[in-house]
């Protein structure tokens, strides 16, 4: 009798663990990854989803079992057994979660350090008005593509330091590390590309940074995730991952086009540009005005 019970518990726990592992690997809850950081993210995510699914099955299973088995029979007015504690059990369900969350904390820290790069996300505080301290970094780290990002109600604007290029579309080269230097003109916005699993607020009055290495060619949505006003939901742009050669070509074309004074396309929300804040940097204002004139 007792042995039988132990066997069935072992079998059940085995089943739960297998289901957890299976779901951890096969959950398909995330869009396909498109960056190195996203790959590290997905391993952590799948681990946590697996564990969460296992715990979920365990607890809901116990609950459903209790509901089905421990129903009061009609007419039975007796109480259940007066058991109110079991020290061994209580130590067990305190200790196992402690070990699990500490391990998850360490694992999370390791993944976190990889996702944000060795370099800490430094914050440059500016003490004057944002537009007077708008610094374009012309020379970056070796092999790093730097892009300056300006967020405003309700658009993203990308400028490429060292070139004349200003665009409403983010182009980045495949396989190269990209560093975004982000500024916000009016209120807080947040830059998110779901396929990169990365998000960073753009905060007025300071520059924030985001680094990633794209690993998949294609066009991806850039989504603003911090409530920034009436048309927050419309504040989207596109990120195009090009081969390095295509990327250079695109930069060159854009530079020529802009020298000839052609307007560039700033994607969504054109209709809201009428309310462009006056503190937008001059070169960007210029671009937007052209867009409006068109």
């Amino acid at each position: 009798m007792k042995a039988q019970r132990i066997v069935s518990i072992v079998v059940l726990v085995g089943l739960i663990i297998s289901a957890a592992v299976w779901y951890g690997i096969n959950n398909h809850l995330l869009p396909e990854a498109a960056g190195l950081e996203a790959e590290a993210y997905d391993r952590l995510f799948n681990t946590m989803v697996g564990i969460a699914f296992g715990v979920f099955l365990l607890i809901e299973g116990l609950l459903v079992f209790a509901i089905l088995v421990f129903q009061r029979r009609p007419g039975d007015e007796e109480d259940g057994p007066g058991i109110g504690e079991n020290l061994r059990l209580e130590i067990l369900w305190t200790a196992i979660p402690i070990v699990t969350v500490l391990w998850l904390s360490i694992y999370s820290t390791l993944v976190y350090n990889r996702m944000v790069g060795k370099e800490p996300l430094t914050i440059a505080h500016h003490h004057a008005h944002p537009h007077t301290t708008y610094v374009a970094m012309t020379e970056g780290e070796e092999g790093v593509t730097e892009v300056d990002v300006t967020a405003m109600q309700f658009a993203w604007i990308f400028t490429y330091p060292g070139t004349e290029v200003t665009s409403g579309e983010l182009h980045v080269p495949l396989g190269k590390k990209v560093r975004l230097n982000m500024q916000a003109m009016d209120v807080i916005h947040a830059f998110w590309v779901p396929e990169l699993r990365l998000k960073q607020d753009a905060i007025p009055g300071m520059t924030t940074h985001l680094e990633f290495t794209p690993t998949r060619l294609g066009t991806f949505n850039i989504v603003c995730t911090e409530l920034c006003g009436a048309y927050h939901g419309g504040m989207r742009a596109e990120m195009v991952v090009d081969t390095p050669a295509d990327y250079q070509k695109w930069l060159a074309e854009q530079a020529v086009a802009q020298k000839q004074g052609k307007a560039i396309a700033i994607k969504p929300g054109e209709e809201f540009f009428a309310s462009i804040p006056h503190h937008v940097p001059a070169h960007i204002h210029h671009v937007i005005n052209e867009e409006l004139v068109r």
Partner: protein
Amino acid sequence: MTTAVTSYSASRPEWLKYFSFCIDHKVIGIQYIVTSFLFYLIGGALAGLVRAELTTPEPDLLDPSLYNGMFTLHGTIMIFLWIVPAVTGGFGNYLVPLMIGARDMAFPRLNALAFWMTIPAGLLLIASFFVGPASTGWTAYPPLSILTDQKAGQVLWILSIIMIGTSSILAAVNFITTILKMRRPGMGLFHMPLFCWAMLATSVLALLATPVLAGALILLLFDICFGTVFFNPAGGGDPVVYQHLFWFYSHPAVYVMILPVFGIISEILPVHARKPIFGYKAIAYSSMMICCLGLLVWAHHMFTSATPDWLRIFFTVGTLLVAVPTGIKVFSWIATLWRGKIHFRSSMLFALGFVSLFVMGGLAGVMLGSAPIDLHVHDTYFVVAHFHYVLFGGSVFGIYAGLYHWFPKMTGRMYNEFWGRVHFFLTYIGFNLCFFPMHILGLQGMPRRVAQYDPQFTSLNVICSIGALILALSTIPFLVNMIYSWTRGERASGNPWRALTLEWTTLSPPPTENWHGEPPLVTEPYAYGISSHS
């Protein structure tokens, strides 16, 4: 049974006391519950409009800025005028003195004052909607809240929250004093029902954290009205500091909303499973642990706000540790059910539903607590799913469980069990349909607080809206049942559930000052299956 009527002035009709500055804690408790439920209906109607807008990806039903005003008012009402007042002011006031054998709260006048502050505060909040609604979410982050076009609405919103916050500080002082000083002689702290432990932890949190929110909002008010630049970067202010102050309050606030509900669940499960609560001391200590940890994890709401790396690690570890005391509670509840004799009354159904849904919310919470995971899902529908599982699946299910459980005590009448069950199943199904798909939406890329979204998310959003419709319908059987039973229900005895905590030793409803004569001494509130009682 007619002698059970209270000794309230016989010359006036009985019901009038609910509309007066009455200092009886039971009247105040019911005033809180009914008022907050009325606000819940308003908040729910707003949610219905929000979900209606979201059935299509285009922002076509409501003007986008009106949409922002609606979810702002929705969230603010649900938190500050429904859940917080219902669980602390409502259940706390009604139950704490009865459970510890006291005649009333320590400061009855202060108590009535705290309640009567919530009404003007609520009206002010609703008025703010009509002068140009605050449209910056319940978080009101600057600089958006400073640069907003709806300055008047934003200012009224701030004043209203400060008023509610003051009310909640007064209530916290009252609860702490009452629990520490007013227990019936002979009742030690570890003889108290667990709901009282939960209220103690809740009140400590509310007392320590709410003043910080008030401070932040006052500075924000200055930035809006008087051109100061505490949080305004245009003059060198720092908007991130506001976020720290805001979450220093608002993370503990989530425990203010759930700890009393943990207490309610710890009361209900033993009664209807006919077993002692499992691990009384562990549950009591875990409330205090949650109280301490809860004060130290606020920046997990700010993992993308340019928070320094070492801080993000600190807040990751702290947040994940919250899972430990929470887990202790959940496992203890299940052990309480084990080998019990479960009566599936409406209150028990909601309590069991609570456990099943809260687990889901807690697991999502642990994932969110990990800084790298949060980078992807922060400010998406995944977070919306998480907090509705803990706040609706958690707090609201717990409130319903408590309302059914103590309905006979509060009103002296029995409710209709059949309609209670219908209410439960509709709510359970509607809830999961409405909120489960939101996890997937967030992971796939849908941000929160948008009236307009990528068309790839349409079908899941339609499912959510259908769930919301079922949820709206589910309140009808509840309301009809409550109103009908309160006026015409079968009379309830003093202790219809054969429960052992002190409130069941008096009449239903209890007389003024709670007991005719001395309250009995109960030092084992959960001794089911142990002593000869019944």
